[in-house]
């Protein structure tokens, strides 16, 4: 297993927790009030409750079931049923390696986290889930570059050895509805970071150059929805 994206940074605000699955590993990803992001095995050691159903208070994640509080190191520091008790050090959530880079949260469930290097001057567009394998999803995003707003003469470029990121550059449609994509001197770049949820579900986390306009981003969001439809149709037709 390798480093994969689990969310756009924008979609995990302070004091929020979400569930993410990465190659069938179920995890709780949360951001503390001060902004620290953590990714843990999605299971409270007490009674097995998914921690992604919990709630964030300050610098702690609390379990929804009995309110056990865990700090950013994963150590349980408060058990509401026994308010005076100092919890034993052995009560600890199982932590994964996580980092934030280029507006994306990256996790490696088994080793060191080493995100694909992308430009930092990007903005979040959206995350879109596709019911197909990562390979089919990646192929669909490449194949359907010809769909508006990214046209046939776009060069699709894989910017790293990782199979998890596609970078699409320089869309130059003559009649593009989106103003900044017509600007030949300063083209919009689009980055698609792919997350393998499991064999049949993939999530594409999409970012774009900072100077892409609101209209550009909305066009990209709609384009991603079309690509999803194509990818899922191609899966459906081979089944």
């Amino acid at each position, binding site marked *: 297993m390798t480093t994969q994206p689990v969310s756009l940074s924008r979609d995990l605000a302070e004091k*929020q927790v979400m569930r*993410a699955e990465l190659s069938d590993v179920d995890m709780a990803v949360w951001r503390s009030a001060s902004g620290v992001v953590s990714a843990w095995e999605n299971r409270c050691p007490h009674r097995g409750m998914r921690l992604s159903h919990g*709630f964030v*208070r300050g610098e*702690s994640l609390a379990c929804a079931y009995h309110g056990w509080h865990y700090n950013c190191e994963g150590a349980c520091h408060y058990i509401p049923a026994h308010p005076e008790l100092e919890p034993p050090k052995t009560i600890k959530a199982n932590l994964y390696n996580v980092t934030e880079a280029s507006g994306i949260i990256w996790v490696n469930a088994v080793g060191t986290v080493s995100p694909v290097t992308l430009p930092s001057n990007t903005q979040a*567009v959206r995350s879109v889930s596709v019911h197909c394998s990562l390979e089919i999803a990646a192929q669909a995003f490449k194949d359907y570059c010809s769909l508006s707003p990214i046209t046939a003469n776009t060069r699709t470029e894989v910017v790293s050895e990782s199979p998890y990121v596609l970078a699409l550059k320089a869309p130059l449609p003559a009649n593009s509805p989106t103003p900044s994509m017509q600007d030949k001197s300063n083209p919009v770049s689009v980055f698609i970071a792919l997350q393998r949820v499991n064999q049949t579900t993939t999530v594409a986390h999409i970012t774009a150059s900072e100077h892409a306009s*609101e209209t550009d981003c*909305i066009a990209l969001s709609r384009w991603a929805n079309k690509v999803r439809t194509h990818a899922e149709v191609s899966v459906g037709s081979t089944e």
Partner: protein
Amino acid sequence: MSFTLHDYVLSGNCYKVRLLAQILGVAYTVKPVDFHPGKAHKTPEFLALNPHGTLPVLESDNTLLTDSSAMLVWIAQQFDTTHTWWPTNDAHRLALTVQWLGFSAKLTESIGQLRLHTMLNRPADAATLNTLSTENLRELENHLCEQSIRGLAFLTGDQPTVADIACFAYSALSPDAGIEHTLYPAIRGWLHRIRCLEGFLTMPGIYEAHETRNEHTAAS
């Protein structure tokens, strides 16, 4: 003018009415109807009140309503002095509100039906409902993605309307039907914003926003 709500505690459509009333601080009388297991909404007595045999029913001195969206409009128009929940002074937002009220019915027909099947064993074509539910959640997700790109927090703009309440219920309750929010980040953010509204009300399957309380500290 207050009202009586013929109510079922697990109904998402009943919950919409309770939620808006709570947010607007409107007092009303609840009359529980034994929907499950008693099927009291199909008794002659209830059918005399509402021939459709559906819940909720809102009754006041001069009104009897059997559609939850109509109830939301009625409550907002009567009790919301700010005119933001039913934005009658903004043609564009008012029209969008009506549009998303219409969409909320699709959520009820898909997720709502699937939930009754999954939770209370009501007969249904689960596979078809599951496909429909996913389609509807994707439509909502697409829209909320665009709203977030525009910097708008709610369905029709920067403030919630009755349409947000109407769409909130069954979107929030989809895990009861076996559909998690994991793959819908924009919906997740929007649900969270609604849960944090002043006067928010919970129901089974929709928890209190415990995170809004202060952090536990050893000293407290």
